[in-house]
């Protein structure tokens, strides 16, 4: 009998080497999201394999990068600064605007949302979530209701809304995602589940800049002025 952990860890070995493709990659992504975070044995093996992957780098001959590289990095450090600033509501609004660029779906047209009904979850998005889970061992998970959850990591300007078996809203309605602070709610984006009920939304936003996420259900194409009815009242 094949040990389930051995089977998982065999995939993890290929995963840390980035050598999986097709069904194996999809299965590894699923395991990394649903099994590994709660399995100490597989988590320990994943850490160990990642350490090996880091050590293997030393087999390559070291080489001196061009003298221009560090100044180039310094210039970018000066230009882009670094995250970690606690944002004011004004900055939060700016961040919401940036979400449009990142997910390419903020304020999406109804036709684009309709496309979702025939689309598959992009493999790159699933890979992105799996990488996020792997890179941030101290994940924060906040149930949002409707089988969806917020997945974030302290100090990281990125979070995911992920769920399986998320029900579709009634025809003509969409889910609307808000970042809610004490006296302010910022519209982040509208979304619908994929045909299999999966929701996977990546947001480039610092979770410390708002109190919680809220999902409401709204008429598709409506102006996102303020939050309407919670989509899943059982949350929080």
């Amino acid at each position, binding site marked *: 009998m094949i040990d389930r952990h051995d089977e998982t860890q065999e995939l993890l070995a290929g995963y840390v080497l980035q050598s999986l493709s097709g069904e194996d990659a999809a299965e590894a992504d699923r395991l990394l999201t649903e099994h590994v975070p709660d399995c100490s044995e597989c988590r320990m093996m994943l*850490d160990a394999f990642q350490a090996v992957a880091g050590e293997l*780098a030393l087999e390559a*001959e070291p080489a001196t990068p061009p003298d221009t590289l560090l100044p180039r990095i310094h210039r970018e450090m000066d230009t882009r600064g670094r995250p970690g600033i606690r944002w004011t509501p004004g900055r939060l609004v700016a961040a919401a605007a940036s979400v449009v660029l990142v997910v390419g779906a903020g304020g999406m047209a109804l036709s684009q949302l309709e496309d979702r009904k025939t689309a598959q979850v992009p493999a790159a998005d699933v890979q992105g979530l799996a990488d996020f889970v792997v890179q941030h061992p101290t994940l924060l998970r906040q149930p949002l209701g409707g089988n969806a959850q917020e997945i974030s990591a302290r100090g990281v300007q990125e979070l995911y809304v992920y769920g399986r078996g998320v029900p579709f809203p009634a025809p003509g309605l969409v889910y609307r995602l808000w970042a809610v602070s004490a006296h302010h709610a910022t519209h982040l984006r509208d979304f619908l589940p994929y045909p299999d009920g999966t929701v996977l939304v990546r947001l480039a936003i610092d979770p410390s800049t708002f109190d919680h996420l809220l999902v409401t259900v709204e008429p598709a194409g409506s102006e996102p002025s303020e939050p309407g009815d919670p989509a899943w009242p059982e949350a929080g």
Partner: protein
Amino acid sequence: MRDSDREDLELHRRLSSGDRGAFDELYGRYAGSAYGLAYRVTGQQILAQDVVHDAFMALWRTPEAYDPARGPFRTFFLALVHHRAVDLVRRESRLHARSERAANLEPLVGEDPADAIAEESYLGVRRKEVREALAGLPPEQRQVLEMAYFGGKTQVQIAEELGIPLGTVKTRTFAAMRKLRAALEETG
């Protein structure tokens, strides 16, 4: 924990609070290994520079991504470099060109032997241990590991290239990783 790992930890702590001097020191320690690795994987200097640039910027912007509880900074950072190198190669669809170049890599322009020697004195011991651990693998296991890690090939591609079942590639990879883990933990 080795002294060098403890020093890295302290540098990372300082970097996390915005200390640029600590960033530069970590660059001095790892830029050579990172660039050598990125060049080995991508086969192109310009791509290797982009990989090292992106990896150090990621470190500066989200130092929290490294959790000391999960191992030395060195392995975290070089795994990050490797990850980005393979990603870049696949994204750029330059595997063919890279493979041709990687088969006969020329010395990198601007390489400074003095720098290389300084870097070696710091990481040299571990480098030797890693190479010994790799040399201790059965040839067929080492082959699939190197094709995946440095060749950036998927297990499916490796199976096709070697004419062996995919399951065999998986088994050999898993066995190699477990053996390396045991060998490197013993010496680490």
